């Protein structure tokens, strides 16, 4: 079976849990920006967490299914329409052959996910179906969807067995707020900031700018100050420059001391800007949900706190799966 794409939307791509192991040659992990939302979509339609979904950015696609299909739309709040009639989000929906799925205006956040029973069935590249557009690999022909594309859907898993619950309870749906507190572990090159610069980073409010995509999000705010120094050989002339190094996913760089950039799942793997800290893994989905204008504060936490938050998130996620009666 397959989905035929009428209108592709703004930037609709095939994503899954991503590919690791190739960051050393500049191939980023990719994968759904909001992993939590994407995988609960999979849970609703009887998939494991591994199946590929469609990630929709702000403006979703118009698509028609050529067979009966079991789907769910999760993630950022949006009007879901089947043949023009509203349907609930975070809930399993049954489509008939020929049904048309479309979307209204997004009401918060950035991305929502279409999960389908059997998963989006594009070939795996380096162990993942995720699209990496810049390298033109993975996903559907290595690119975002276009009108007229016919996107293959896989066969149902577990003989088509669906979980007993058909809707994610409210307490397991993420909040898509206009304010965020993002936890970071300071480190990498934070010692190169002045005390005032570090103070600005942690105590002032920063706003997500429109320059935000799968590669990273840029924030505006009061700026920071870098300590002056004689630059090491090969590092470049600005005090925010370092000898080109690997970039941690989630790391925060502040080129020229003006606008912090958080690198996300399609991160460039390295470069010559000093990083001052890294978003903890448990808050990466939160950052992915930040729309332009989101007021953000950065809270420094210890590595131990970050590890604990990671365990808490895993526990919360596993509880959501078991609440649905689904197996991850």
């Amino acid at each position, binding site marked *: 079976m397959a989905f035929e794409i009428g209108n592709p939307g703004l930037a609709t791509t095939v994503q899954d849990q991503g590919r690791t*192991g190739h960051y050393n*040659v*500049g191939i980023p992990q990719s994968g759904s920006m909001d992993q939590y939302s994407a995988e609960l979509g999979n849970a609703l339609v009887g998939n494991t967490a591994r199946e590929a979904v469609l990630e929709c950015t702000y403006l979703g696609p118009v698509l028609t299914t050529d067979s009966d299909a079991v789907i769910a739309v999760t993630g950022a709040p949006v009007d879901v329409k089947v043949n023009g009639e509203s349907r609930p989000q975070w809930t399993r929906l049954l489509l008939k052959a020929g049904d048309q799925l479309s979307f209204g205006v997004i009401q918060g956040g950035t991305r929502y996910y279409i999960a389908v029973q059997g998963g989006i069935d594009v070939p795996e590249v380096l162990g993942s179906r995720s699209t990496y557009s810049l390298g033109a690999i993975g996903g559907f022909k290595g690119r975002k969807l276009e009108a007229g594309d016919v996107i293959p859907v896989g066969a149902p898993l577990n003989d088509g067995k669906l979980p007993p619950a058909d809707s994610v309870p409210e307490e397991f749906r993420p909040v898509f707020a206009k304010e965020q507190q993002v936890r970071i572990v300071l480190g*990498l090159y934070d010692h190169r900031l002045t005390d005032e610069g570090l103070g600005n980073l942690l105590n002032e409010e920063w706003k997500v700018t429109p320059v935000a995509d799968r590669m990273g999000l840029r924030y505006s705010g009061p700026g920071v100050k870098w300590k002056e120094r004689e630059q090491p050989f090969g*590092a470049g002339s600005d005090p925010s420059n370092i000898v080109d*190094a690997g970039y*941690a996913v989630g790391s925060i760089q502040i080129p020229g001391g003006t606008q912090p950039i958080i690198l996300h799942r399609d991160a460039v793997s390295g470069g010559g800007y000093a990083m001052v800290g890294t978003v903890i893994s448990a808050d990466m989905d939160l950052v992915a949900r930040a729309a332009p204008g989101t007021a953000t504060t950065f809270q420094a936490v210890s590595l131990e706190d970050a*590890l604990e938050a990671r365990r808490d998130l895993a526990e919360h996620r596993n509880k959501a799966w078991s609440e649905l009666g689904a197996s991850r």
Partner: protein
Amino acid sequence: MTSPSTAAVQQARYTWGGDEFLFVEVAEAMSLAANFKVMSLASKLSDAGIAGVVDICPANASLLVRFDPAVLAPSALEETIRSFEQDLGNEEEQTLDTRIVEVPVWYDDPFTAEVAERFREGFHQEPGGTDIDYAAKVNNLKDAAEFIQRHHEQPWLVSMVGFVAGLPFMFQLVEQDKQLEVPKYLSPRTDTPKLTVGHGGCFGCIYSVRGAGGYQMFGVAAAPIFDPAQALEDFKDFMVFFRPGDIVKFKPVTEAEYNAIQAEISAGTFRYRQAPVTFELSKALADPEGYNRQLMEALNGI
């Protein structure tokens, strides 16, 4: 150039990139010795096959390691790499089994010239001139021809692969006072032709894909270095050609030679000229140009 005994013994700095990354800064400044230490640490870590190590990313003077903290405790990873660092300090000879590759380049080509023309005022230090002329000037060289000569006559070490898929950063194997240094564009371009041979700071690079970039542009490499379709023989095993530690010898080609290579690529017959070599750090540091001659001999008769 600094002797290995002073450059290599400096203790690395260990710091966390959140709960999934360990960053090991071997040195703040770029040097062959620092890069060699990074590659040695990376290969020891890779050989150890430790469960929970997800990505091992050697860079110019630092190593980035991604790990799964549910499988491997951060402190255990740090202790392991620290012990490797200690072992390295006790080793007499530092060698790297690698290869030397000849990369044909059309210097001063029309593709980069066309793009450069679109990004002058507000982007470039000398909007009225070309990137190569500017590079020659800031390196106190006579003209573009001398710069091109200096660029290809001595080989380069791939000190890092990344930024985007398959892009090699390269460090020329010459003494520090002979390194070509050129500032990046004042503001990054939104376009760079695929396979542009670029330069920023002391690093050369080849842009693997078309896109944004801030390095000065001197030419285009004639053959692919990133091939997701894996059509050519050199990409049969993997879509990315370069590995950290590769040694690159640029070879200037004419327009006619460039076109002949394009025909070979279309026919699927193109192969890079390459030969295995063992790179010895102490020899490279003691007599860079003499040792380079020896390395380049490996390409003869292939």
